[in-house]
């Protein structure tokens, strides 16, 4: 095989991996949209908030230290010792559930039956709020996410593929980031468990009923409020996973919330209501943007990935206005 061909494979492979990272974020959007029709712009900030909280627990930071110090003139920063990773994840999850509960009580229950754009707007307000709140609580400095996931290029793959290139060509073997492989595995696990949850548990069935028809679900005795709390908690969990993966990649800091922008093209491509859509959409976007950058990007000046993802999604939409896996829009009069 020629090195060029192997390079293309390498690009595709890495595109797949990047795509899964996008899907992780998109999943959270889909869950909430499916269950409540809310386009949750705050999903990215939720990932940031979850990651901040996790690191905060791990390192034993005192929440709101800066605020406390500024108000009372004290000088507190750390409890002295942090939690181990597992415990910290559990505690973070508890915080996310508490957050979902508060959100439902304070905001969402007043917003039933509002127009989608108003709900969308509410989540933008929420994004602002959580961004400021997260910074207040844990500080704005860059934090290192370490939950023990391995990272770095895979030697194994490099060694194996080195021999594939034709004789005499200078080929270094294929590259793949171990962290990405882990992310892919975790994403698959997540999707499987979400599917099992929604298929085989009572709550899951209730969730699907609500997704199909709010009012019908209410008439058979499903409490919309508790469903919303559950959905936002699950979305919080997905945000935590996304936060861990992205945080391990780039450190925990404000920019983490911007990953939402990478998830949007995935969403429109896959359709707002489809979990498999989020995964496959992510893969298509990941491969598409990496291949485009590899093949043509250099010719037109590079850094094409940001807009190309959107243009690719737009191109798909022209043929299927409801996304690849979205429910077909039927027009009636």
């Amino acid at each position: 095989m020629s090195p060029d061909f192997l390079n293309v494979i390498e690009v595709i492979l890495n595109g797949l991996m990047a795509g899964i990272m996008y899907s992780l974020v998109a999943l959270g959007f889909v869950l909430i949209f499916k269950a409540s029709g809310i386009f949750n712009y705050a999903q990215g900030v939720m990932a940031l908030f979850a990651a901040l909280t996790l690191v905060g627990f791990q390192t034993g930071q005192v929440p709101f230290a800066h605020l406390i110090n500024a108000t009372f003139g004290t000088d507190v920063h750390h409890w002295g010792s942090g939690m181990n990773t597992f415990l910290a994840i559990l505690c973070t999850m508890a915080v996310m559930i508490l957050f979902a509960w508060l959100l439902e009580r304070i905001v969402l229950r007043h917003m039933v039956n509002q127009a989608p754009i108003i709900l969308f707007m509410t989540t933008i307000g929420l994004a602002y709020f959580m961004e400021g709140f997260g910074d207040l609580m844990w500080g704005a400095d860059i934090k290192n996410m370490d939950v023990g996931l391995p990272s770095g290029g895979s030697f194994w793959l490099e060694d194996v593929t080195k021999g594939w290139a034709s004789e005499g060509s200078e080929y270094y073997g294929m590259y793949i980031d171990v962290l990405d492989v882990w992310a892919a595995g975790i994403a698959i696990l997540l999707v499987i468990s979400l599917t099992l949850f929604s298929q085989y548990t009572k709550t899951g069935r209730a969730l699907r009923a609500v997704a199909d028809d709010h009012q019908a679900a209410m008439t058979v005795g499903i409490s919309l409020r508790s469903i919303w709390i559950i959905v936002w908690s699950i979305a919080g969990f997905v945000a935590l996973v996304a936060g861990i993966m992205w945080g391990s990649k780039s450190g925990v800091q404000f920019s983490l919330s911007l990953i939402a922008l990478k998830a949007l093209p995935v969403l429109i491509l896959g359709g707002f209501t489809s979990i498999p859509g989020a995964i496959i959409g992510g893969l298509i976007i990941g491969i598409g943007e990496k291949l485009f950058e590899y093949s043509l990007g250099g010719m037109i000046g590079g850094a094409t990935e940001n807009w190309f993802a959107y243009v690719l999604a737009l191109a798909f939409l022209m043929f299927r206005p409801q996304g690849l896996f979205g429910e077909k829009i039927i027009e009636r009069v």
Partner: protein
Amino acid sequence: MKLKTLTAAVVAAGLLVTSVPALADLNFPMLSYRTGAYGANGAQFADGYADYFTLLNERDGGIGGVKAVTPECETGYKTDKGVECYESTKGDGALVYQPLSTGITYQLIPKVTQDNIPMHTMGYGRTSAANGKVFSNVFNYPANYWDAASVIVKHLSDVEKGDLKGKKITLVYHNSAYGKEPIRTLEELSKKHGFELKLLPVDHPGQEQKSQWLQIRRERPDFVIMYGWGVMNQVAIKEAANIRFPMENFVGVWWSGSENDVIPAGEGANGYKAVTFHGVGADYPIFKDIAKHVKDAGKAAGDGSNIGKVLYNRGMYAALLAAEAAATAQKMHDTKDITSAQMRDGMENLKIDEARMTELGLPGFGPEINVTCENHGGPGLAAIQQWDAKAEQWKLITEFVESDREIIDALIAEDSAAYAKENKIEDQDCSKG
């Protein structure tokens, strides 16, 4: 209607409320950014800037006996906020502005010139502002982006024993005005030294750089230079470590060389280099004073954890240069309460030698500075620092060396001439000395 009038009154009153420092103070406003995508960096710089003035006030009773104040205005690194901050603080007798963002700098250049307030853009901003004849109120000593590029190339040339011919150098840059700055210099240098230059832009914010680093991995350049900012730095250094790019061949500009950038990559970042125009670490006598008069006195701007970090030092250095210029201005005009115009003169005649640096408790921290009316850019000296991941410390590994004046001066002349023509600016008269 009453309600509305009342609201309007409250709003109007609120918009008018701005901090009004006592008139006799020397006012050094800070356009800092502690929030947003770059907030983690901005906080360190701002802490250093504020702490130095606090030190002067606490230890020496101010500058020439007059206290300094540093009203802070949050820009979030956004240009429109920068303008608002400028307008809201300039009325209080602001002496010098540190806009801390290339975008804000570009906006303020005509404004500060109009208002006759000097602006100091240390290691950022508009590079050709080094030409003091055209940019009368803008100073970017001690070094600028183009100096950085040149010093980096010089260092690489030293590594290669003076011969870069046929070598491949890749520039990974933030796809913005800032990131594009070194391109022309590097192109000129590549002609001169005969190396092959390749450009790889990374879009803001830069969390996904797989394409760029796969490309680097395929093409195996001998060296990679980075002009990054924010999360882009951390991801790039991590990716470089992942593809096992030899870190000692990876050199960043000074905005890609703080602790924030390398720590997330852990061990992998060991050996990464960055150019700098000031010393690193907390091993200078001045830090004893800061600990005593500022931190332990509970007067630190932040929580004190940033002291001694790269960007903190940079902020402190900026404050030092401003304070020295203010002192120079006080001497020149023989008055304690200087105006912004006098401050400008002070900056234009700023001279700091090694003896003075030692006196200030910072021996060997920065090169000698000698600003003139023609040259607002300072000596253009810079050194290379290297990251020691085990010790979690930056170390200077070279002396402060000079950039390639021949190339850079020509570029500065060309760019400033274009600006002067576009805006019909006449050279300021530098003959009166």
